[in-house]
């Protein structure tokens, strides 16, 4: 005998964040690095960004932390840092883990 059961996940909140669409092409892009505060994140991300810039003919134009006190990996990035990045660069590398 069939049974109806409720969905345990429920709805998404209005305004839930969606991933940005993928860039159609990276050639010549202005690249930024957002250090998320994990150990060696800046070194790893900057190295990768410089490698990417060399491959696509781009340029690393901005390297920044999240702006939060202590720039801790567990704290959110300050909105003005995100706004600045969105205006100045087309590609951002971020999110090194342990």
């Amino acid at each position: 005998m069939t049974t109806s059961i409720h969905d345990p996940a429920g709805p998404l909140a209005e305004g839930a964040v969606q991933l940005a669409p993928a860039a159609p092409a990276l050639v010549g892009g202005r690249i930024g690095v957002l250090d998320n505060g994990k150990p060696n994140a800046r070194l790893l991300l900057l190295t990768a960004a410089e490698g990417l810039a060399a491959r696509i003919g781009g340029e690393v134009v901005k390297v920044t932390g999240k702006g939060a006190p202590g720039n801790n990996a567990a704290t959110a990035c300050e909105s003005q840092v995100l706004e600045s990045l969105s205006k100045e660069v087309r590609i951002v590398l971020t999110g090194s883990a342990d």
Partner: protein
Amino acid sequence: MGDNAPMSEGLHEIEDQSPEALYAFLAEREWGDGLPVVAPTEERVSAMLAGLDPDEVLAVLPPRGGSATRRAVAVNAVMAGCPPEVFPVVATAVRALGQQRLNLRGVNATTHPVSPLVIVHGDAVDEMGFNAEVGAFGPGNRANATVGRAVRLVLLHVAGARPGPGDAATQGQPSKYAYCTAENQAASPWEPYHHSVGVDAPSAVTVHCGENPHNFHDMESDDIERILDKAASAMATFGVNNACISGGEWFIGLCPEHAATADRAGWGRDDVAAYLFEHARRPAWEFREQFDLLAWAPWMREAADDDLLPMTEEVGNIRVFVTGGAGKHSCVIPSWGMTRSITLPVEG
């Protein structure tokens, strides 16, 4: 099972309520905690809701950005096996999870093993059948077990905190199945914990995102300082996040006998916290030797190498409550660090 497509918004049709059918339904969607669940039928969910507004959003939970409507929370409470009378505690815990200061996004995103611990205070403990006595953290009591599990199922389903994409904990920890205890007010010499933090209600819920309990025991002492020296030694370890993040809290779960020893010495919970703040310390140079990154309060950064530094930046971060039964085992519960405990009055 056949096709389990939703019949209408929020409803699915399954062939039957057998454990096998429910396992298959959950597995198909990467849901569940790996244990059998109770089928969240319309009748059971309706009983859990007890006539309250099913569409009220109790919290929005990251990383998925799911709306924890009262209905969605009730569905998970049914699946966890909750009796309807404990649902207000589950709902209150979910409200706490949604508070920004708790930082649920970080709690779910971190590789650190951290679980929301639900502590029930006040009249709800006895009225709803929670166990605050022997085995208060352990199995065998329906209210403790199912409330803790319901909160985890809400995290898995509504918040999307599935190990891997939604919960990055390297090893996880057993308390990620269920983590709920209750304050043993009858055996506590002090005012209820929730009153001590300014929540003046008959019943309350605290959510503290932390590690599993770290036990300390002292079977012999009539001297509270000698007992708390064991707690201090359990705290002053470099393996916990509190060692490198000074803003983290510590919850100290004293057993009734240790609490009674403190009371006989004329100590209140603030005295216990102050003692631990002063004695759970290590030299600054040891911290500096162990960590490249120290999220310390400014005053700690200025310490000389030989200065003894505490395991948290202020005494108010050490929070004491009484739980458990006979015996002389207590525990310290480290925090993850970048989170604050939340205490709320119980509301449906």
